[in-house]
């Protein structure tokens, strides 16, 4: 157990091990996204009420889910950083941030373009939509913390401040999740749940599951890919960087 902990504290170990993981997740992301999206957009049957327009679901549901999961991940990584001070955690949080922010944007835009033909409006200030917009602002705030604070207050303090912002902001996640049940919203409640059978046929939800798995793999792939480079940047003058990337640092 402690040895495992110790490993995660080692930047060199992470840098070397994550190269293979990121590649594996990259291939899985390609596989599942292609499967889910081609199946969903080309082969899945049309909906009897929404016609072909419901196909936006294959991008809307995964992106909205991953926007929230990514935020929770950033908050948990922040908590781990505050309690155990594992060096790699704030870097992983920074690395996954752009993906999370992209997911909120996609969820909001795909929601708008699904809402226009179905509800008759691009935007409405209802609980689900407003709390999701708030999630986008939280991502922007975190982004500012991670990219602007280090210059003025030092990297470690900045990472701690960002962790606190992330943890406090995570209160918004259950609000998004339960908004469709607590308030009367235009947004429908969830059609797929862990505990119940989905409210649609297998020919519609199987491609959706493939797309969701693809989004998860894409998150891990992009997180590891960025984290390795951010780690390199943070530790550019440590001995291990010269050891593993002699070509990059060798010249200086």
């Amino acid at each position, binding site marked *: 157990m402690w040895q495992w902990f110790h490993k995660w504290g080692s930047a060199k170990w992470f840098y070397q091990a994550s190269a293979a993981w990121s590649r594996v997740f990259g291939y899985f992301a390609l596989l599942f996204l292609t499967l889910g999206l081609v199946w969903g957009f080309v082969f899945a049957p049309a909906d009897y009420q929404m016609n072909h327009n419901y*196909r*936006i679901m294959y991008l809307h549901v995964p992106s909205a889910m991953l926007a929230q999961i990514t935020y929770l991940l950033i908050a948990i990584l922040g908590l781990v950083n505050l309690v155990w001070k594992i060096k790699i955690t704030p870097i992983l949080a920074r690395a996954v941030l752009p993906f999370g922010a992209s997911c909120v944007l996609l969820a909001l835009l*795909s929601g708008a373009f699904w809402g226009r033909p179905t509800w008759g409006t691009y935007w409405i200030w209802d609980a689900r939509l407003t709390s999701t917009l708030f999630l986008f602002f939280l991502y922007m705030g975190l982004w500012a913390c991670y990219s602007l604070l280090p210059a003025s207050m030092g990297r470690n303090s900045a990472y701690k401040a960002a962790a606190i912002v992330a943890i406090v902001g995570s209160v918004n996640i259950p609000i998004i999740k339960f908004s469709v049940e607590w308030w009367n919203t235009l947004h429908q409640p969830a059609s797929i749940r862990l505990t119940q059978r989905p409210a649609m046929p297998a020919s519609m939800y199987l491609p959706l599951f493939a797309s969701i798995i693809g989004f998860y793999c894409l998150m891990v792939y992009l997180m590891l890919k960025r984290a390795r480079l951010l780690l390199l940047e943070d530790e550019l003058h440590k001995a291990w960087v010269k050891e593993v990337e002699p070509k*990059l640092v060798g010249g200086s």
Partner: protein
Amino acid sequence: MPFDSLAEFWSMGGHGFYVWTVVLFFALLLVLNLVSPSFITRRIKARLKRQQQLQQRR
């Protein structure tokens, strides 16, 4: 198959504008996410170069 022809596929039952805008936006964000790590590499290289120049001047 829910579509009989390619034209039907593009029109998405009259909802083509909404469906394809979302797909296009997804593709745009995906490309941006895939390309942006190279910005970090470029930043690192620029920093190393700057430091090298400083050292040579000394």
